[in-house]
């Protein structure tokens, strides 16, 4: 297959970025999107024209959350329920123009080319996205029964891979789906109840502080989530938030 790639190049966070065009030929339809970029880089290295295109990637099986490219206007490209590394070239037409950009959101500054800094997500989790336990001294696992449907819902929310597609897809760069997924995961479990009110308060405040935008309920995040995390998690986040506003015991 043959493609014309338009790739965002930016040397570092301070430099001005621009699109660069690269023609590419002889790509197998069974090739994954990142393997296609590997081939391009191999050519750039062999031809000594330009520095290879930098893009984050690691597990290449859709679970680590490291890869994330904006492809022809969609985070993770034109397929549902997959990450960029799971996208294959057979999803494109021979001769296509492909536009490749990094996540664009104020809290995710570009490091180089298509690589962005997502440490803002870590900071939101550090604000309270956990159950406070120290190692040891916990009760036997089966002394905490959890209704199966709740455990399943918690699991669905917990499958978030922290890739940032929700933020990239949102016109406001809101992180509500990411935060909603973590708040839901823990709020659905009995273990998570004790800190629930405090947790949602701290996580939402941190999210705002880091410059993520507000949610205006367009649900682009849900449509683009590679793990198909549902918008109901945002509703649950809102309910938890309101509960925390009125019900939280203050010191």
């Amino acid at each position: 297959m043959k493609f014309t790639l338009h790739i965002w190049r930016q040397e570092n966070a301070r430099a001005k970025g621009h699109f660069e065009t690269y023609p590419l030929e002889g790509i197998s339809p069974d090739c994954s999107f990142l393997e296609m970029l590997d081939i391009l880089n191999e050519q750039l290295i062999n031809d000594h024209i330009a520095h290879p295109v930098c893009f984050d990637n690691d597990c290449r099986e859709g679970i680590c959350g490291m890869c994330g490219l904006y492809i022809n206007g969609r985070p993770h490209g034109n397929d549902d329920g997959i990450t960029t590394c799971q996208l294959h070239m057979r999803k494109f037409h021979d001769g296509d123009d492909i536009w490749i950009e990094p996540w664009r959101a104020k809290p995710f500054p570009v490091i180089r080319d298509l690589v962005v800094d997502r440490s803002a997500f870590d900071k939101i989790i550090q604000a309270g996205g956990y159950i406070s336990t120290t190692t040891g001294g916990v009760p036997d696992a089966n002394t905490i029964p959890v209704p199966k449907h709740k455990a399943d819902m918690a699991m669905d929310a917990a499958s978030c891979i922290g890739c940032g597609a929700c933020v990239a897809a949102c016109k406001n760069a809101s992180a509500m789906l990411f935060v909603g997924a973590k708040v839901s995961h823990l709020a659905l479990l009995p273990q998570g109840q004790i800190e629930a009110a405090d947790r949602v308060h701290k996580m939402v405040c941190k999210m705002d502080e880091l410059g993520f935008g507000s949610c205006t309920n367009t649900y682009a995040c849900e449509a683009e989530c590679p793990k198909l995390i549902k918008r109901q998690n945002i509703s649950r986040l809102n309910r938890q938030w309101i509960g925390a506003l009125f019900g939280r015991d203050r010191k």
Partner: protein
Amino acid sequence: MKLDSKIPAGPLAEKWTNYKASQKLVNPANKRKLDIIVVGTGLAGASAAASLGAMGFNVDIFCIQDSPRRAHSIAAQGGINAAKNYQNDGDSVERLFRDTIKGGDYRAREANVYRLAEVSGAIIDQCVAQGVPFARDYGGLLDNRSFGGAQVSRTFYAKGQTGQQLLLGAYGALSREIARGTVKLHTRCEMMDLVVVEGRARGIIVRNLVTGDLERYAAHAVVLATGGYGNLYYLSTNAMNSNGSAAWVCHRKGAAFANPCYVQIHPTCIPVHGDYQSKLTLMSESLRNDGRIWVPKKKEDAEAIRAGKLKPTEIPEENRDYYLERRYPAFGNLVPRDVASRAAKERCDAGYGVGTGYAVYLDFADAIQCLGKDVVEQKYGNLFQMYQKITDENPYETPMMIYPAIHYTMGGLWVDYELQTTIPGLFAAGEANFSDHGANRLGASALMQGLADGYFVLPYTMQNYLADQIYVGKISATTPEFDAAEEVVRVRLNRLLQIGAQATLNSKLSTLNSVDHFHKALGKIMWEYCGMARNTESLTKAKKLVSELEEEFWKKVFIPGTSNEFNPELEKAYRLEDYFELAQLVIDDAMHREESCGGHFRTEHQTQDGETLRDDERFMYVAAWEYQGHGHTETMEKEPLVYEHIQIANRNYK
């Protein structure tokens, strides 16, 4: 080098209890004065840092990715073993211990394995307390499933994403400590060297991957939890950035490396389909619960399939060879990984392979007919979807094609009972050490070991070491040892970048190749001659080819850019540089071990039915290698394996 495994005295079942009762402790006020470095944020690293931080030590943790949650533990699918006996099917600590020793083909240390089985239950308790959403039954209690090499159901799971959920649990605990200030997080930082002062591990040199700056960190102890070296083979189920370099620089500084030739090859991976391929995707072992593995019985059928003239569904039942069920009636499709992998290779080498010739079928037609498509979809839906996305074939209609691939390395840094390497103050945990799986790891045991080491072993054994360190005071990072280590790294990086600069001067730029070009070539050599089957001839050849390739690498590798910027090509290059040395050691170890055991299969040593043939008389020991300088053959020390408790037997799954 003297190996002292420090196994506590007394009966096996009391060793850990006795150890804990008599070890040295550090009082809370002193903990604050002690610094610990943890490298790696996978299950072992994150759990160790979280536990040590919560105890009050000052911890610095490092990872090469943009977040601790990216570590490759996240990709583990199937589950985690624990001897809870919730299913009342006869499980116990003793049973898990015995299965693990047998699964490892009697090449693991008894005391370590017993301790692993002993703490396994507490891991599940800890994870549930953290909110890990394990699968549950309708009564709200925890569910289990079976894995290879066991006859009980002791595997806890969270859909096909158990590793992810366990890692997020540990990441949560770690995040809490970061918020409390007991742990400092350093992302996109790569360990480049270990600093040894007066014989003790006292710090590390790291490269900031964004700016390229070299930075120094000093501490009273260092924990290495950087995973395995499976990417030595280029194509593996490991993540692209997983590498063996951190462990290897420790080896260069004097830490012994144990059993490097024990490499696990996983039987159910999506086969290789092209030269451009960057990695292999695993299909969970749990699929073997219901899938049946076969190849055509007739060679002409296999040929017709390969030529695209025949479909697998057109081959009648009587012309299919369900070779695992034929050879191993007792365990059938659920034999351990090494056994299943070799059997697939045997059929393909004999000319019965499908696809490119290097693939076999994993067929769910019977399961779909017997259980219904809905049930199969519920159990394996996400895996089937993953398969379809990659191959564009529908596994509900046509059998999956699978082939073995490099997956895990049982070998690693040699550690004693306290998980301390031969360098005092340097500890190794998880896949980075060699300790618990012998010559073959059972499914769902890697997660168990990573978390056991981090949550329940290191927090005890490290105190035993650190108790004396309170008299040392703060460790300085400005000593000559740090200067020297940093200089070595600088020289190394410059040497790599010089190759391209030299070629530019001599206008020979067009003769150069990318790092990947060399890594792929190295992987091919290792897979071909030191992979699933090895012998004197193939290993001799491998050694020669690796030397030649390394020579070429130093003349012809081109790394664009400089060391003072975000430069992934440079990262790949220094990791590959270490792989060249590591490859030689893997080959030497494979050569010296003239027996077959677990994942190490020497074709000269097999039974008439093609099974592994151990030589307990000569090889019942751990081979611990000591670095002697680049290009020099390493020397080997033996740690004899003494089995006081278990009855040694042939490993039989028939």
